[in-house]
């Protein structure tokens, strides 16, 4: 045992860990590592998440953990040299996921091609007491794929085969690396699709969607990923393989498929996923409405739903978002609107016209200034374009963006948005809001520049305050991005010690040594690594 840091000591307690210290060999790569850290670890905020991060400006030698050559050799033997990454330059790509605020490089990345390879990798990690982190496309927004304590990242991107499309049972059998949209593309010629549609669906993988219980604009009507997962093949952290659930309905026993879904890669590695396919709706009708005030837009949302209409999607953009989109694209959203709603209805053609008329009438009753109804698929795409590009257009305005995820009861949405604006104004942080308004799922996007002194600390203080506002309104910490390494220290704001203990029971049953994706979901005090 040669670990120098406290982290090493902690790891050493099980007596099997074979981490060895590694002094970065190349001045060049060390410099890059330092640059990355300057970007991400410049404040005490990050050190809260990684107590061993290197204080900036110190002369301390940058130290990375590297696995013993013999262990690397074992891993290489499983996946082949071409499917293993272990040099600092290569590992840098894997030092964060979609949440770039937190970074830590793994010691090795392996890209297995089969269930058997995954099982062997997990066995190696378990045998040597090395943390391992399952990873999909790396688009997650809560640091779920962050190698907080180093270890082995198991990237499942090569396992992307669609094994079977069974339309009679409306099921698809896929490997975890299959891209969300590719599945729908494969099924759609036969009239089916995979309903969950996170914004990342062009790049995000089924395994990642499963881990995060991904949502998307259309989950208002069709539910989250968990409502579309039927059965799983999983390599448990013990190295055992189990089938959870079954293709046949109502598998006896506990619903471990439901528990595994949304467990953020902390309960094992799914190597085969059976999903529910949905019938493509006969048609869709899309409306876009600009409102004078956000309150009126939100009230319209509540009335639509209270009238018994469940749209497929009910999206909202606030004033700043609308202006940014208009400045950057040719979409031409209602320029004077304080809030814009995109309302999509789908289902049987014979039902849609009546419902669309009702929705339009409700919007008018709530003083909407402008109402557009798509008359063709092309126009429908145009109405969606502004929403789909909204996040990207913000990127042009600022150096850094923090895309936050919170959820409140839908009838509290406008009140919560205005309170969030008050808080942000008070500390001078500009923000824009997107919301899946039908679900009460809010995405405040904070604009900042992390190279400015104190900016990051300010942002994280604001995040805590925003979460407090949401919780006070009956909301929760995350609607669809997950807890990961981003919000695990906030879990106490919402959950009691006993509630958290029950969650720990789940983790212990699956992942007793906590080698599988350590330091996620539960607060640090529940982790032997923190």
């Amino acid at each position, binding site marked *: 045992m040669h670990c120098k840091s406290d982290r090493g000591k902690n790891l050493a307690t099980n007596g099997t860990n074979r981490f060895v210290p590694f002094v970065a060999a190349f001045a060049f790569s060390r410099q890059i590592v330092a640059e990355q850290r300057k970007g991400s670890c410049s404040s005490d905020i990050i050190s809260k998440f990684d107590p061993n991060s290197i204080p900036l400006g110190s002369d301390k030698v940058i130290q990375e953990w590297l696995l013993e050559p013999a262990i690397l050799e074992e891993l290489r033997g499983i996946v082949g040299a071409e499917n293993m990454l272990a040099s600092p330059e290569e590992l840098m790509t894997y030092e964060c996921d979609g949440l770039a605020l937190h970074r830590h490089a793994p010691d090795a990345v392996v890209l297995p091609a089969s269930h058997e390879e995954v099982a062997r990798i997990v066995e190696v990690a378990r045998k040597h007491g090395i943390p391992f982190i399952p990873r999909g496309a790396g688009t997650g927004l809560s640091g779920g794929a962050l190698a907080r304590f180093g270890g082995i990242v198991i990237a499942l991107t090569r396992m992307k085969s669609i094994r079977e499309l*069974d339309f009679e*049972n409306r099921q698809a059998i896929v490997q975890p690396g299959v891209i969300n949209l590719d599945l729908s593309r494969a099924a759609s010629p036969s*009239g089916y699709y995979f309903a969950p549609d996170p914004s990342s669906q062009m790049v995000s993988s089924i395994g990642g969607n499963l881990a*995060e*219980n991904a*949502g998307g604009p259309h989950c208002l009507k069709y539910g989250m990923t968990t*409502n579309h997962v039927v059965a799983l093949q999983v390599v*448990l952290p013990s190295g*055992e393989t189990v*089938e959870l659930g079954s*293709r*046949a*309905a*109502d*598998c*006896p*026993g*506990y*619903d*471990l498929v*439901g*528990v595994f*879904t*949304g*467990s953020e890669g902390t309960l094992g590695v799914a190597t085969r996923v059976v999903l529910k396919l949905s019938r493509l709706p006969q048609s869709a009708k899309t409306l876009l409405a600009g409102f004078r005030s956000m309150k009126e837009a939100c009230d319209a949302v509540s009335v639509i*739903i*209270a009238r*018994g209409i469940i749209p497929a999607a009910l999206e909202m953009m606030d004033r700043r978002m609308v202006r940014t989109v208009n400045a950057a694209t040719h979409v031409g959203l209602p320029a004077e609107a304080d809030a814009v709603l995109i309302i999509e209805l789908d*289902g*049987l*053609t*014979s*039902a849609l016209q*009546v*419902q669309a008329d009702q929705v339009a009438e409700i919007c008018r009753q709530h003083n909407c200034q402008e109402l557009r109804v798509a008359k063709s698929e092309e126009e429908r795409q145009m109405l969606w374009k502004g929403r789909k590009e909204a996040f990207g257009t913000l990127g042009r305005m600022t150096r850094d963006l923090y895309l936050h995820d919170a*959820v*409140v*009861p839908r*009838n509290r949405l406008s009140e919560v948005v205005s309170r969030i604006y008050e808080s942000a104004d008070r500390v001078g942080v500009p923000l824009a809001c997107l919301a*899946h308004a039908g679900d*009460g*799922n809010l995405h405040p996007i904070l604009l900042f520049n992390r190279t400015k002194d104190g900016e990051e600390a300010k942002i994280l203080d604001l995040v805590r305050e925003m979460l407090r506002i949401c919780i006070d309104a*009956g*909301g*929760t910490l995350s*609607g669809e991005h997950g*807890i990961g390494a981003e919000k695990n220290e906030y*879990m106490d704001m919402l*959950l*009691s010690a*006993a509630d958290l203990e*029950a*969650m720990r*029971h*789940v*983790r212990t*049953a*699956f992942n007793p040594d906590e080698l599988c994706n350590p330091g996620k*979901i*539960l607060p640090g005090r529940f982790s032997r690594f923190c």
Partner: protein
Amino acid sequence: MPGNMPEIDGVPVEREAVPQSVEELAQAAKEAYAQNLSMVAVGGGTQLHLGNPPRSVRLALHTRQLRGVVEYEPGNLTVSVRAGTILQELQDLLGRENQFLPLDPPHPERATIGGLLATNASGPIRFRYGTARDLLLGIQVVHADGTQTRAGGKLVKNVTGYDMCKLYIGSLGTLGIISELTFKVQPKSEAIATVMLAYPTLRAALEATQRFLRADLMPDALEAWNSAAFQTIAEGAEGAPWALLLRFGETDAAVRWQLDRLRELVSSGGGSILNVLGTAESEEIWRRAASARAPSADGADLWLKLSALHQSITDMERRMVELGERLQARTLLFCHAGTSILYGRYHWVQSECECGEMARAIVELRRQCTAIGGHLVVEKVRPEVKRGLDVWGYEAPALELMRRVKKQFDPKGLLNPGRFVGGI
């Protein structure tokens, strides 16, 4: 004066308690835990036949006094209720806002919400609306030692930590005692219609359902029942070996479109329409349909639940019929055609079937069913037969993981001991 439950599956109930509040329930659990007493939670008692015989019942904890709606927000489509609330009472309340909880298990007039969650009970409309796992947003649980926890909330989207709700659904009170629940509710459809069709075989009925679904029909429920089963809800149905019942709930225009489309498909593709019912009649027939597979007073019956993939259902149906012939029972078959679940109810008019023979026949059917990836659960049978078999028949490697979960949540093994899979 607690209930009068002499026994559960032949095992005597030693003591009963009827807590008046969640706090009393927690206190009762805490005391029982200290004395290592086994505890069995009891709701409306409509599903007490489910499970292996308990190892012991030192204390039956009735949840029936934990009733009432805690919070209902029609605008949010959410409702929170205490576990002992009767399903029908909740439906009546939601109905005033033209909403409902889309769960239609047998006996809504007696079943408690907590009980139907613990048993993951469902009915025909699960084809459209899913089961409890698709509807439950939040849960409060009293654990074996009296600790209270909550998970989820009143939000339709929530990924704050592990999805504990899923763990408790269908766990048969072996991980904790459910005390309060929050659901996503649904607006009632503007119109409902029911179409009853006749087919010569289950295969023909199932082929028809596939054709209907490919033609964009969106039924709430798709039930294929054999003649004996169908006669329990409709008179004059003797002529149809198999009846297919379709329920459509939508806007008035969309229901009419689907009925027209269905008539076209039937005239070109076989089958014959027996009857078409409007909204009011439909509600009545589906109320009866939900309980038909599980009649209350039927002491000597055998109830089986078989699930398989669509491709194997007709083969399994034949074997279920053979089982009835072998045991000389009248066989009623209820198939959720949309989800490929077959419920079999075997009924003996005069003599009772010999225990050993019945157990052997069931085990044999299960072997055939497991071989094709299906499940066969014995939902109800006399305790003497239960002692000769495992009613769940689940032996996959995941069972060991389930035991680890159980051990974490109930290390002393006091909650409903022995009733669940693998003796959990």
